[in-house]
């Protein structure tokens, strides 16, 4: 493994390190206890050491909680290994990470496919929400045997997301409207629609005055792999996520349509000259991307939350925006996206654990994500910081330019 800046794994790891370092500084400068300790820096001989100790303790505790909350607690692991008991507790962090990552992987793949075609689908959030709504309605308003109901619910979710994707796709294809503004605006529209739906009488959770929708029937749920009793939430949804990754790989690398997508992303004019219809590609990309995002939304509903509410997929990190950072980190390739989603999933779950333990708001985790992604997107910068030998560095070119 050469130590050049061209090696993407090295760059990613170093970017991660940098991200956490910056995150540490943010913690330091915004935590009252640490700041107080530094204020008394010159008070006594022991004061500086004390200040640094507090810093390391605090930051270290924060990051340690992040790790144990998202991956594994080594002590607990050892305990379970030796006594054979308590596996449920030990495996909970990883289970949580996988649960969180399941819809994230799917949306990130959706976004990654659009990026490879040179189109910016910033509407992953809205598309996932609309898919979640569509599927949740099917899942909760009618009752059918599971073998029909579950697939039907999932398909409804895909269609809902595809419908949301159709708007920017058609507008871009026929009017050239820039998809960034349209998708961002559409997100806001769909958020409002979500509130409307969950507050409306037919759909609101009976007995609730809040913005919570009906729960889907058990015939439309994806059960947890290890059963309800274990408390491990990871569901069969991870197989759907894995399936999506495989599909995306096949689609982009082996299918003819995927080839058309990649050609269009690399050079729209050459694509047109070689016979590809740009309009068809644009519409298809948004239908597929939107559909996958919708799938993510409905998977989230049927496997984890079982209903949509006013903060569905928004309250956390706005899954659509996290998906963008994941796609960038994974360099728009399906396998890379899988790893990046697991990583950022861990970050998200860990962030919440950190908040529970130390009170540091989990938004910090998102900030770290953004910083990591910025570093990853500029390998040259990372190289300069770490003085790696220069390979032929290439900036991450994603195709579109300006409003054209």
């Amino acid at each position, binding site marked *: 493994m050469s130590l050049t800046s061209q090696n993407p794994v090295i760059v990613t790891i170093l970017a991660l390190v940098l991200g956490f370092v910056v995150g540490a500084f943010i913690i330091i400068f915004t935590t009252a206890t640490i700041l107080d300790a530094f204020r008394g820096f010159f008070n006594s001989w022991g004061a500086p050491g004390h200040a640094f100790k507090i810093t390391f303790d605090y930051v270290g505790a924060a990051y340690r909680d992040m790790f144990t909350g998202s991956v594994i607690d080594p002590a607990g692991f050892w305990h379970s290994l030796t006594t054979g008991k308590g596996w449920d507790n030990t495996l909970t962090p990883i289970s949580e990470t996988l649960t969180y990552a399941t819809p994230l992987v799917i949306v990130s793949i959706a976004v990654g496919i659009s990026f490879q075609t040179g189109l910016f689908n910033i509407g992953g959030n809205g598309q996932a929400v609309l898919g979640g709504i569509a599927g949740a309605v099917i899942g909760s308003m009618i009752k059918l045997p599971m073998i029909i109901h579950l697939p039907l619910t999932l398909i409804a979710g895909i269609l809902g997301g595809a419908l949301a994707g159709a708007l920017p796709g058609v507008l871009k294809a026929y009017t050239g409207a820039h998809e960034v503004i349209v998708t961002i605006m559409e997100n806001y529209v769909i958020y409002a629609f979500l509130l409307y739906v969950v507050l409306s009488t037919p759909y609101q959770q009976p007995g609730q005055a809040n913005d919570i929708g009906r729960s889907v029937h058990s015939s439309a749920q994806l059960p947890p792999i290890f059963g309800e009793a274990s408390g491990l939430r990871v569901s069969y949804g991870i197989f759907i996520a894995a399936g999506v990754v495989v599909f995306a790989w096949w689609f982009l690398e082996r299918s*003819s349509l995927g*080839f058309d997508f990649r*050609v269009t992303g690399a050079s729209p*004019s*050459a694509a047109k*000259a070689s*016979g590809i219809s740009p309009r068809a590609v644009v519409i298809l990309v948004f239908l597929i991307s939107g559909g996958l995002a919708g799938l993510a939304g409905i998977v989230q509903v049927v496997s984890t939350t079982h209903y949509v509410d006013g903060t569905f997929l928004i309250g956390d990190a706005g899954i659509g925006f996290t998906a963008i950072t994941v796609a960038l980190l994974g360099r728009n390739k399906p396998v890379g996206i899988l790893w990046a989603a697991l990583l950022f999933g861990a970050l998200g779950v860990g962030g919440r654990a950190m908040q529970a333990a130390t009170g540091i708001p989990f938004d910090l985790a998102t900030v770290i994500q953004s910083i990591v992604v910025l570093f990853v997107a500029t390998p040259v910068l990372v190289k300069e910081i770490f003085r790696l030998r220069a390979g032929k560095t290439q900036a991450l070119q994603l195709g579109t330019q300006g409003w054209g």
Partner: protein
Amino acid sequence: MRLELRGITKRFSSLTANDNISITVEPGQIHSLLGENGAGKSTLMNVLFGLLHPDEGEIVIDGEVIKFADSGEAVRRGIGMVHQHFMLVPVFSVTENVVLGFEPTKSLNRIDYKKATDDIRRVSKEFNLEVDPDAIVENLSVGIQQRVEILKALSHDAELLILDEPTAVLTPQEIEALMAIMRSLAASGKSILFITHKLKEVRAIADVITIIRHGKVVGTAEPTASESELASLMVGREVELSVQKDAYAPGQIVFEIRDLVVRDDRGLAVVDGVSLDVYAGEILALAGVQGNGQTELVEAIAGMRRIESGTITMNGRDITNETPRNILDAGLGHIPEDRQRDGLVMTLSVADNLVLNTPRRAPFASHGTRNLGAVAQHAEQLVKDFDIRTTSVKEPVSSLSGGNQQKVIVARELSRNIDFLVASQPTRGLDVGSIEYVHRQIVIHRNRGNGSLVVSSELDEVYALGDRIAVMYAGKISGIVDPSTSREDIGLMMAGTTVGALSD
């Protein structure tokens, strides 16, 4: 000014673009730098103009060694450059373009447009370069735009004028006018460095000729040297200046354009009632200065631009306003004008580019899934047959030289079992070896009994390839003649005179 370049060397990683180049330009001299595409002329000029810094060597102006920090300083030192691709802002007026960077100002940093315009009119009169200072540059003809570029350099008090391939975009008459301007500038004491790869022009205008090959100076010559002497110095071997063609035996009409009208984005008719026929076994060469509608005509043929009225028929099939997909499948081969933008996908591999037009056709794909093995095999075959220099077919096509990139396109189109070939500026920017190669391939296609339309602004190429020559001006065909027609007459047609008006 007296300019000396001493031992200029410039390297780009493994490539030495300029290797110990020394040239002297005397005041009032028209010094021509002759070299084929890729010889290193542009790099040298960028060094001279301050856009690049030489690795070794020095620039000496009137005996003083100068180092340019940037091109602004080169301009201040009296070096003016007329670029091959104009450095003019299209939406600005002539005045704004000419004063850019050297604007006269009033209070509050406001631009003094009155003074600027007066200055322009003065310089314009002094050197006999008529322009309208308030015109918006993008509305001007290419010849006039070039005048603005020259004006720009002169208004910065340039003493040395570098002209980089200035005649690519001009009619023969405009070239004459440009040469007159150059002579008068030289007579008034300015030095001129005139870069080109065109042998005829060099012999017509230069006082001294320096020949560059592969980054080195290989000799100087007088304008009295013969074309073949200059050509072999330029290329390093005997050059075949014409292409061998079988006897001209045209068959049926295989391609017909009737009364074609195509509008550009602003609603103007850039193709204004064009009619052409091409016979089997024939190359119809379409001559004309760039910007007279040829680009849009080819785009319309290939299905990339909407045809407002008129028809195009290929082998009896109406392909007017069909999709590019259908047109390609119907048997059209297309070598586009801008190979890197329309002909290739630079980031994809050579193999993928070689199937770019037909990725779904068996055996390259079936049931929506690609057969990568077949694609690679096909690519290996073509690389061998067409002598494409590449380390591997998996390499991105961007790693190939310009000539080899064009070979990829030519290989792809000609191996694809097409009926009719449309080639637009097929040898632009290529070295002589590649030019010979591309011409040979087109002629092979012709000799097999197929028809071709070759659009070119290089008269040499038009004469070499064309069995018949059509000339396009301002969206119309000003005439269709045979290759025995003189260059002057064709030049007149390129400037708008129609065939009927020519005597004899």
